């Protein structure tokens, strides 16, 4: 399964981990937040960004949904695996951090279903 490590300094504070795959959902299997050298607590949100199809009641639109919130203290490192087993991402898997921090390192692994 694919994985990616990134520091949380992306412009606009959103970091893309996995692009949408049309015929599958993304199933995150691991999120590890290394904030040991972070300058402040890392407040991270897992964001699902997808485009809906036109339906009977609505036109096609880009939509986001927050799927998980994590608050990792300074000098801490948190790993989540079992907590993610029921999470599904319909579109693009993104992480959003409250304050950009080059010392906050996030690793995400995922699979497709």
């Amino acid at each position: 399964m694919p994985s990616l490590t990134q520091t949380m300094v992306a412009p606009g504070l959103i970091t893309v981990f996995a692009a949408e795959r049309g015929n599958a959902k993304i199933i995150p299997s691991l999120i590890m937040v290394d904030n040991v050298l972070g300058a402040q607590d890392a407040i991270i949100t897992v964001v699902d960004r997808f485009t809906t199809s036109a339906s009977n009641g609505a036109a096609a639109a880009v939509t986001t949904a927050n799927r998980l919130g994590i608050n990792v203290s300074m000098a801490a490192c948190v790993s989540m695996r079992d907590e993610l087993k029921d999470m599904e991402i319909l579109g693009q898997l993104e992480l959003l951090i409250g304050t950009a921090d080059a010392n906050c390192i996030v690793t995400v692994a995922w699979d497709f279903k």
Partner: protein
Amino acid sequence: MIELKPTPLATVSPGVPKLLQEGYYVRFTEAWPAELSPVRGRFFQIAETNEVPYDVFHTLPTNDYRDVDLSNAASGENLYPENVSTLYEVILGFKPGNYLTQFFIPATEALSRLEAPGMNPSPTSATLRYLGARKPEDSPYEDKRIFMYFVKNVEPTILRVLVDTGIDFEKCVLGFTVNKCRLSHIAAPNAEQLRLAKVIRYYSELRW
């Protein structure tokens, strides 16, 4: 023309092919309309096959639906053949999710309805949305159990894909395998060939 195959109650060894194969026989009933005279009441042997997988996917909001037209209409998915000597055996399975699918052929007429007045599927009804609707577990993506048979110019088949309540959005993935079958006409089949043939009924025979 549309069949939902039940879960197998027994297994046979060696296994039996799920799809039509080269050399198999098919027979179209007399109920097929005169406009479809190339197949109406006729008997064929499968000369060649080719399996083509294809996925259709839509992310839809809760309590809302989208009609997916399988025909070759401008907004359709183009899953109908263009040649009169081609039969498409299309099998359909669903990836898991909180959605239902209702079948309409032609566009305004539900395939599954009951005899009492008003017992027609309706996506806007809290109860009738479940009438005749197929759930993903009825025909899993990896074990497709819904079979459809299309020839050139048959009326459009519409799948009404409805996201049920209790979820914000759902990604509905419809997995198709199109078994392209080239038909070879047999003018005078013998009794054994007739016995072995798969009978392909017109949709009006299914909705009695």
